[in-house]
């Protein structure tokens, strides 16, 4: 079925680092012409990064990208487009104020002496949609379209610009099952016309249904590339998560009768969270598993006062608390470690000490708000030592620490407040193995001292290794609850909602 003899896309030893963390490490993949090539992996495995490198959206730090056997180094998606590579991103990019036709031909308008030939553009558009069997009014403003139709615009854009390779990054994540079927039909038609599709997804049933070849990535490394026909959902899951992932297992107390520290009941936020209720006892670690978009981070943010809620109550230590801002949650004794330490957590330009004490600077200041820097240094240093931050230098800038040490500093900020309830969203994302183990021990120790912990992680091993109870979220609700050490496959299946295939 291959239309060309040379591989249209070849990636050799690709590496990409984000502030010291390896997003991709030595990944080599060859994409055959006229095929659908799927990239799968858990969150943070690097599949989107790899797709973006092919599409010229980001540049690799190491390795070489070959397009039609020619080494290339794209500085922008525009350069990739000139070589016939189009990217349909998770965040769709058409200009919302312009019509469908104008979007499709944006940058490639048929023109004569500098003037856009509108009539010719319309004729070409009609020809295109007839050819691909789309139903889409060319004069509608793109901003008024549904996501599925915006995607059609992007696909038309790609074929109108004669793209030979189309990179699709999680194209179905916001589509209904009917729309997914339509999209899959289009992809098959594109393949039949000799185009090559690089398909990034974490929906395994779709991948198996659609792809000719599958590349599995885990933590930025290549696991394998092979024909999709030889894979099953089970084999892909095993590849994505690693059969023998080294997450330390901790002793878990059973049947705790300690008082309930955090009680959430009937928490709802329109379109995001539906009627969430949960309890966490003192000393208990409750794990929250689920896919990205299942509402786990949103639940954490709602409890922490970061996002507003429509309904529901939050009680800490038996007292109902009216939480309308992070300051309210902090006053109630809740600490929240957000998912992205860069975007929501750290002040990169400030020192370790400033970052550590930031949520409670008053405790190292005199009555009139004058900082006692000596005291701040001493307190910070002792926390840094107990968290084994390297180097434990309070005046060093946070930006120059490794990912793992940055994460420890963020931990230090919240431990500095001695919280009663600790909400951790992806506490070990992008940290190295040693720091990860240290953070796991720390979480376990904190619980042993009586802190109630809500642990959210994309890595199921992490949840299973630490949690005394496991809750699974899907589509904004808690769908399953397990005790300590549930079987990994059961949790995975609940998270993926398997059994009902692509019903979302």
């Amino acid at each position, binding site marked *: 079925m291959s239309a060309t003899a040379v591989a249209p896309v070849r990636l050799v030893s690709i590496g990409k680092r984000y502030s010291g963390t390896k997003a991709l490490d030595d990944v080599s993949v060859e994409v055959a012409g006229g095929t659908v090539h799927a990239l799968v992996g858990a969150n943070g495995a690097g599949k989107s990064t790899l797709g973006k490198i092919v599409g010229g959206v980001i540049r690799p730090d190491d390795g070489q990208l070959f397009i039609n056997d020619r080494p290339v180094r794209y500085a922008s998606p525009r350069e990739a487009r000139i070589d016939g590579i189009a990217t349909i991103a998770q965040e769709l990019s058409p200009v919302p104020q312009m019509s469908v036709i104008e979007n499709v031909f944006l940058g490639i308008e048929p023109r004569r002496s500098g003037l856009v030939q509108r009539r010719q553009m319309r004729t070409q558009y009609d020809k295109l949609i007839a050819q691909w069997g789309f139903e889409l009014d060319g004069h509608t403003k793109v901003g008024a379209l549904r996501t599925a139709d915006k995607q059609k615009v992007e696909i038309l854009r790609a074929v109108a610009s004669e793209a030979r390779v189309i990179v699709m990054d999680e194209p179905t994540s916001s589509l209904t099952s009917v729309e997914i079927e339509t999209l899959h039909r289009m992809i098959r038609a594109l393949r039949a016309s000799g185009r090559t599709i690089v398909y990034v997804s974490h929906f395994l049933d779709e991948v198996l249904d659609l792809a000719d070849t599958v590349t599995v990535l885990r933590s930025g490394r290549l696991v394998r590339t092979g024909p999709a026909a030889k894979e099953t959902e089970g084999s892909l899951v095993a590849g994505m998560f690693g059969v023998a992932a080294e997450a330390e297992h901790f002793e878990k107390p059973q049947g705790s009768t300690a008082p309930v520290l955090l009680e959430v009941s009937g928490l709802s936020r329109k379109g995001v969270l539906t009627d969430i209720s949960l309890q966490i006892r003192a000393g208990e670690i409750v794990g929250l598993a689920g896919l990205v978009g299942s509402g786990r981070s949103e639940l954490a943010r709602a409890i922490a006062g970061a996002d507003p809620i429509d309904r529901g109550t939050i009680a800490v230590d038996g007292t109902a608390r009216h939480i309308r801002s992070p300051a309210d949650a902090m006053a109630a004794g809740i600490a929240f470690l957000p998912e992205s330490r860069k*975007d*929501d957590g750290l*002040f990169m*330009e400030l020192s370790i000490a400033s970052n550590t004490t*930031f949520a409670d600077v*008053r405790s190292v*200041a005199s009555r009139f708000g004058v900082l006692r820097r000596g005291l701040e240094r001493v307190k910070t240093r002792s926390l840094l030592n107990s968290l084994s931050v390297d180097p434990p230098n309070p005046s060093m800038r946070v930006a120059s620490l490794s*990912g793992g040490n940055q994460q420890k500093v963020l931990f230090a900020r919240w431990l500095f407040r001695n919280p009663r309830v600790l909400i951790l969203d992806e506490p070990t994302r992008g940290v190295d193995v040693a720091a990860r183990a240290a953070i796991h021990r720390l979480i376990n120790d904190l619980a042993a001292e009586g802190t109630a912990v809500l642990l959210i992680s994309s890595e199921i091993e992490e949840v299973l290794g630490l949690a005394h109870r496991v809750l699974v979220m899907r589509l904004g609700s808690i769908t399953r609850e397990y005790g300590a050490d549930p079987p990994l496959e059961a949790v995975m299946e609940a998270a993926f909602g398997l059994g009902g295939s692509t019903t979302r």
Partner: protein
Amino acid sequence: MSATQPPDPVVPDPVGAGDRVSADTIAAPRVRRQRRIKAEHVRDYGIVVFAIALFVYFTIASSVFLTKSNLLNLVSQNATIGVAACAVTLTIIAGNFDLSLGSIFVLAEVLAAYVAVHWGVAWAFPIALLSGAAMGAINGLLVTKLRINAFLATLASALTFGGIAVGVTHGGLLITPASSAFTFIGQHSVGGVQYAVIIFAVVAIILQLVLAYTVFGRHLYGVGGNRDAARLSGIKVHRTVIITFVITGAACGLAGLIDASTTGSGSSDMSGLGGQLALLAIAGVALGGTSIFGGVGSVWRTVLGVLILGMITNGFDLLAVPDYWQDVVRGVLIIGAVAISSVVDRR
């Protein structure tokens, strides 16, 4: 797939590439210290070296430059700009912008002169400060509660304040009675040092201390550096931002009072200092090295930036260099300073 690959460049510590170096020197063993001047050092301290070099150059080139009276003149001529610039540094560090400095300055000056004429000279001081603070509070509310971009909000409020000033003066000057009290801070000195210079120094020192040594100052860096993180850390972001605008407004009111006191009148004329104040002050802030994007900077840098700009005017005047060259040099200097920092940051 493994045979043809080049060996993986093993980085023993993930701190490795992409990290910035300034803190590295602190952490590194003594041997590596001071090995060479790095780009970050040029960005952070280049302006100090430049200021010294400029000072030395003018000292050599002009026999008048290094005299007590000339240097005091230099500082007192830049005192109004300096006071406004030091205060707006706080607003900028907290991630905002204020283009209304000149209009607050003019309206406060006019109001001070007005109350001096109608209520008595003693009212001029509190009214200048309070009206400035009130105008700053309006800016702060527009930016936070109405979520108007600070650039546009202060551009619009500047027009409004300036318009009101013209209305109060009926388009002209408000001359105050030749009371020696009104011209006291603008025209008098103690031990040869003008009061304007003393006010500038006091404002600069207080604001520098607030920024570096108080809880409020720490919060400003946090809000400007990472607004979301600051909010998640329990900071009342809106309140913090409004306070920076109020401080800036009050400082501009004080600057207006100095100006009115120096000339002995309240002028609504925007073609003078009032029209240039915002740009000159912000130029001083940027030249000093405070990031226009917030989160980084300090008041002493702004003082340095303002004085460098003042030195160029003063020194070139002494050397009889035409005015237009001064503007060219100042413009090029600001571009150079901002470009160095942006190039270094991007690497």
